[in-house]
């Protein structure tokens, strides 16, 4: 089962994303802070990381650097949820490290498509 780590500070959004993804056969672990997210990444070695760019304890660039320092997460695709304005993003993130952006609010089809892209083997 593909494993997804969801780092998102809003518990209610975690609940909704979990329902949505687990029904599609993903295993979802969640963390509500950047620090817990890094811990979880070390423990589970996820296949994909869903990252909300606004976290209570860390700047997104910091979280991403932390994730990249975790053995086994150096190349794990990061898909970012963002309510931020696209233009504001550059100040807060390492753009090149984020594989996909999902602007909030999103359509379910967009969420699934952007995640599935990393699990369907190109042939």
């Amino acid at each position: 089962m593909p494993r997804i780590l969801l780092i998102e500070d809003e518990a209610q959004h975690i609940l909704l994303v979990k329902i949505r993804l687990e029904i599609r056969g993903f295993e979802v672990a969640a963390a509500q802070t950047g620090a817990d997210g890094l811990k979880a990444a070390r423990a589970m070695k996820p296949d994909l990381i869903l990252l909300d760019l606004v976290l209570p304890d860390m700047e997104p660039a910091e979280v991403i650097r932390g994730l990249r320092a975790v053995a086994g997460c150096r190349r794990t695709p990061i898909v970012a949820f963002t309510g931020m304005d696209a233009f504001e993003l550059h100040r807060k993130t390492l753009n090149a490290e984020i594989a996909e952006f999902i602007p909030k609010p999103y359509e379910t089809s967009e969420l699934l498509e952007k995640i599935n892209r990393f699990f369907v083997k190109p042939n």
Partner: protein
Amino acid sequence: MESPQDINVLVVEDNPFDAKIITELFRDIKNGAVFRLSFADTLEKAGAAARGPVPPDILLLDLNLPDSYGPETLTRAAGLFSDLPIIVMTGFYEEHLGVELIKKGAQDYLVKGKITGDWLAYSIKYSVERAKIERKLKQREERLETILEKSPDGMMVARRDGRLLFVNHGAETILGRRREELLKHPLSLEADPEKTVQTELRRLDGKKIPLEVRTVEIVWDAEPSRLVILRDLSPVRTLESSRDEFISMISHELRAPLTVVKESLDLVYDGVVGEVTDRQKEILKIGIDNSLRLNRLIDALLDITKLEAGVMPLDIAKADLNQLLEETGKDYRNLAAERKIRLVKDLPKSPIFTYCDREKVREVIVNLVSNALKFTPENGKITLSLRPWEGEALICVEDTGPGIEAEDLPRLFNKFSQLGGRRPAGAKGTGLGLAICKGIMELHGGRIWAESTPGKGSKFYLILPMQPFDAALKGVVRREIAMATARNRDFCVIDINFAGRALGAHPRKAELCARAEAFLKSNMRNSHAILKREEGDFTLVIANADPREGCRACTYVEKGLADLAGLAPTLTSDLTIMLSYPGDFRDEETFIKKMAAAREKTDA
């Protein structure tokens, strides 16, 4: 009764004989009644009399008194009776003494026994008048001084060599140094007598202060000098950066809960958490639609805020306006047919090209057409037209709707100015559409306005300059300079000639150029503007980037494009030219000249 012409004279004289002479002099004066005499035989008593119920208008002062002797008496008297005119009277005339006394502030110097009564009368009257004028001048000077001193703006007068001649309190505060120190050293401040200069000052205490410096050529003490006016821009800057923060805060804080609302409704609607009836679905759909509407409102609010703050990103390329209108017409063909409205196009035979942000201009036209569709009744007609007009492109969206009252026309493009009563039921907009249209047109150096005949319909006109690449670039750089100056930030412009300098006659040139464009758009999100000059040639405007960051961006672009085309890094090492503000240029004319020169040099 004391008439206004009455003059109270206090004679300070210890010798009764001299006092008598003076009294007699006054008796000789024609119309001498205007003078009212009083006497004091010491300076101390004179002081008490001056504070008494009838204060004197003038002092006749003998220099040799029991409590004071010689010219010193005048100095002490002047201190005791500030602003009071003093005439010194002595027994003997001493030439050297006269000038000295006048310099010390005496109005006149007279010798007892050598003057007539009338002479004395004139001297007194002139002295009193002169003193009045002096008081007025002093008052005026004090007023100006108060204004200068209390003004929070710094004001200084500097000689040509930079040496300061005058410094006010505001300048002390802004520069963080006392005026005694400031007056000692020549000042080197960036200034231009023609223009207002915005600069940053690093104070001795290490604090950096954004400053606005204005200079005016003046003559100070017969010497050509400069008046330098300093304004501390820190409060303005705080306001501007809090607006930028607001943009990013509003988007996150509003969208996060909105996402939860929409996703909750979606989950139930999709039947993921249990079966849903059609009736339930219908109601859930209302919730979903409204959460989307709320999101459109947030988008519109952000757009208008970005337009007003001058940070709306631009993606500029050569656009075919005929094609743009063709496409928009096609997009709305079905909706118009459904509403039984004829959608007619009136386009010129030869295409009209201009460099603009195609998507944004399209957004404006879409907004106007969808508005027209909302308001035009069945069997109505909407005409979409384009024609060249005095070197510019004139686009018009005309409808046969109810029209707009003349008094409503001026506020049509204001924020939230939806016109009451005019809107058909169910057609709810954001109230920002036309304000955004106006912002977008102004961003392109264009205009938008409306004309209408109530009862017959409305015409919305757009004017877009038909501009070549360099004109569009100049406009973008002008906007960026204004933005950067207001926020005291740097920015960089990077010119990329991928097609010419790197690809040459590469067999897959077209494909690689398209991929380069996609690469830049997805990786250079911090660009305030991406301009496409030709296929494979781009100019990026990177906001808030100092030259070091600009260089890093160049390296990143060069490496990225080399990887993408499978080229050796040496082939792409001179792919970019970077100019940075404010180091390389301070106005758009200089920028264009320098960029052209740099391009020529690199291409050669």
